[in-house]
């Protein structure tokens, strides 16, 4: 992609917006490539290449916003999309705080792409997928089958320009490795999955991915059921990442405005134990969702959401910041050119309470370690109620003594935040985009026989 290409397209779109019967407008241009190579039993299963290139357009008129998109970046394609967006305006309700976002100075000193990634050959990709698989198979003879051992990557760029004078963009790259496999022993099958990512292929750790997936499957073999009780529970970092990833929408300012957040009206109040600090960071080196600007071109930053137990901020885009008379947090996210921007997290982080994982586990005399959960998408982020399926371990004196499955873990997020006894210092970024550390909870409902 030449550096002039995106500028030419942005110029075409700004010219089309200047002629349209609107107060202003915004263009988002995406040009990304994705490839993947999948291997099973060391044989190539599939090699894929995708190109995503297109524009998302917003037009603004008297507090009304219309959105449209087009993969056609010619002057004709763009003006048709502008027409479609303008046609929507009479049907939506006005909201005076919806305006063209103003530009803001930012530093572009983030390392967010590996320039070598686009040049990686298909053979190198296939080899990476093969290495992940062979590491997993070597780890244990009980790993009998592999569903998919995969290398994938994405690289390209996105640019935002608007009629208020904003024009920013950046390039990015990420390489991923993952494997899904099954361990078998005495008629019992258990699944293991693991994934990792880096800016480029050279920084991936195929051995770690393969070994983690294999041990997850093996650890579940022979799992029994649990007895129903209320107990201390340790959550695995990946479970914590999933739970906080789902809880995240309670911090979105638009949900607060619409009374669809359990944190509405609680700014400055205690919402969690005093040892809990939760941060969203858009500029973390090495995280998945890192970039200099958000989906509206606003600089990303670090925002403390819960500060030592007290709710200290929501996540804002340009509209909600204006409406709630506060500053933007760089939290506008895009799911590609086809979708309009919405508030979302960059990377959520739980601050450690200053102990390591081993010490944390040692605090549990009798309890349950939850290593995986099912049904995260069923958590109700408005009431905060959750009831998940889980697998893990019975714990005794800090040790994992017996694998368990077909277990329920239930409660309310508000209670969970107040039952958080410790957070370990083993923070890890997951390929899902969330991060997590080992966490100890007190008084959690476990369902079983």
């Amino acid at each position, binding site marked *: 992609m030449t550096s002039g290409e995106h500028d030419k397209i942005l110029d075409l779109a700004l010219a089309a917006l200047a002629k349209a019967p609107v107060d202003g407008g915004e263009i988002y241009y995406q040009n990304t490539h994705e490839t993947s190579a999948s291997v*099973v039993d060391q*044989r*190539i299963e*599939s*090699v*894929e*290449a*995708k*190109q995503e*290139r*297109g524009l998302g357009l917003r037009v603004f008129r008297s507090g009304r*916003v219309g959105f*449209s998109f*087009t*993969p056609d970046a010619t002057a004709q394609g763009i003006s048709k*999309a502008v027409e*479609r967006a303008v046609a*929507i305006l009479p*049907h*939506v*309700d006005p*909201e005076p705080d919806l305006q063209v976002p103003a530009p803001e100075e930012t530093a572009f000193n983030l390392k967010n792409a590996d320039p070598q990634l686009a040049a990686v050959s298909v053979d190198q990709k296939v080899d990476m997928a093969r290495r992940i698989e062979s590491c997993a198979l070597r780890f244990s003879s009980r790993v009998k*089958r*592999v*569903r998919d051992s995969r290398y994938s990557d994405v690289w390209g760029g996105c640019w935002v320009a608007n009629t208020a004078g904003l024009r920013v963009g950046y390039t990015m790259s990420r390489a991923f490795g993952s494997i899904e496999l*099954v361990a078998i022993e005495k008629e019992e*099958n*258990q699944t293991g999955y693991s994934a990792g990512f880096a800016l480029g292929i050279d920084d991936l750790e195929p051995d770690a991915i393969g070994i983690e997936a294999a041990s997850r499957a093996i650890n*579940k073999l022979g799992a029994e*059921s649990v007895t*129903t*009780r*209320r107990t201390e529970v340790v959550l695995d970092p990946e479970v914590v990442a999933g739970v906080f990833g789902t809880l995240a929408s309670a911090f979105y300012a638009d949900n607060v*405005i*619409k*009374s669809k957040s*359990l944190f509405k009206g609680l700014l400055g109040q205690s919402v969690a134990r005093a040892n809990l600090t939760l941060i969203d960071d858009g500029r973390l080196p090495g995280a998945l969702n890192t970039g200099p600007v958000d989906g509206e071109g606003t600089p990303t930053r670090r925002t403390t959401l819960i500060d030592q137990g007290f709710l200290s901020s929501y996540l804002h885009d340009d509209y909600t910041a204006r409406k709630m008379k506060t500053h933007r947090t760089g939290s506008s996210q895009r799911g590609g050119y086809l*979708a*309009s921007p919405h508030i979302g997290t960059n990377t959520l982080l739980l601050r450690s309470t200053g102990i390591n994982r081993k010490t944390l586990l040692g605090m549990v005399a009798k309890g349950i370690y939850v290593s995986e959960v*099912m*049904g995260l*998408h*069923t958590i*109700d982020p*408005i009431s905060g*109620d*959750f*009831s*998940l*399926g889980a697998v893990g371990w019975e714990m005794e004196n800090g040790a994992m003594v017996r694998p368990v*499955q*077909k*277990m*329920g*873990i*239930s*409660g309310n997020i508000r209670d969970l935040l107040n039952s958080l006894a410790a957070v370990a210092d083993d923070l890890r970024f997951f390929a899902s985009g969330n991060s997590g550390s080992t966490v100890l909870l007190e008084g959690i*409902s476990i*369902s079983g*026989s």
Partner: protein
Amino acid sequence: MNLMDESSARRILEALLARGGEFGEIYLQANQYTRIVLDDGKLEEILSGEDSGVSLRLVSNDRTFFYSGNSLDLETLVVEATRLAGALEEGGKPGPIAMLRPSEIPPVSPIRIAPGTIDLGRKVELLRRAEKAARDAHPSVVQFSASYGDSTLSIGIINSDGVCAHETRVYSTLFGSAIAREGEQIRTGYHSLAETKGFELFEEHPPEEVGVEAARIAMVQLAAKPAPAGTFTVVLSSKAGGTMVHEACGHGLEGDFAEKALSIYAGKLGQQVASELITVVDDGTLPGKRGSTGMDDEGIPSSCVLLIDKGVLKSYLHSRRTARKLGHSPTGNGRRESYRHLPIPRMRNTMILSGTSSPEEILASVKDGVFVCQMGGGEVDIASGNFIFNVGEAYRIRDGKIAEPIRDATLIGNGPEVLSSIDAVGSDLGFGVGTCGKDGQRVPVADAQPTLRIPSIVVGGIVAPTE
């Protein structure tokens, strides 16, 4: 409608198979859609556009090479086809291309009112009517959000076996969520309409239905107590939809899991995997149902597949690839979210067929248990067969009668264990709708079941603290 002429298609297929390969395919898509969101009393967002694109697939010696992009330019596609062919060894003999047989697949669900003929204002009005009905239903309903969606999806499939088929599918949906509040208690109720129909769906089911039902469930939730924790006898009402069959056996019968012997159901054709009372089909031919298709996304005509017959495993759900691997016939279950994805085996309309017991008698037979009237989302672990699903509306059963409502329950079980344990199957049948996610691809599905009794299953709920 013609998405590509035959001579262009032939040129691309020839480039794709230039160095050999058993199968080449062009998949074309044009999806015109509208999505409208009403939230907090405001018409918040309208999205309207066309997502069009193409993908190319080359299969050689069981390896798949795939490209997707949104340019329909012939020269670009020939270049990409040549690039895919370049993955094969040089000097291979060109793969065979059969004579193309153009066919228009008749719609499985005849459309009376095409969504494209209805102006935006009338679509917006549906949402306002649903909202008014929800807010009028009860003063405790403090918030309502709804979304309308329609999609007119044109698909063209041209492959080296000679398939040159075109189908248009029309989807209409209306989803509503009501929030009821009393003091500190906030509860949500959902309801949705989703079928392969045009705008006539809303003549058959007025939008008020969505508002009133979502409000009713939110009010029931408000009155409900936290679900108990432990093992219970559970009656799943036919009204509850079919999440259970979807999670407990549907996914495990998908051919990709069977072919690699990953699923708990793999290698068990002809064996008893469920109670004799259980017969399961996946039917893609039911007019109007959300999972119905004229052909699948590989050009295989839709049909009704008998999966489990009186408890005996009869078939898996296949794409072309998994059918070939296992030496079975394709079943028309090769589906994809869009041109961006490879087809994989997926469910369509999956159902447990009706039995002979009276639903009232099934309920009356339970002394102490849980009665489930609405199932929410679920998830399954294919290898172990362990599954969970969330419960939207449920009640305790005491002495054979429906007692107090309970909330936030999750049912946790093992597929074959639960299906084998079912000891009563009702004479009724109820449908549910959903969007199923697998390998990052979302496809529309429906499922159905009669009233069922599960003698013993874990209910994930709350254990009261001991003082």
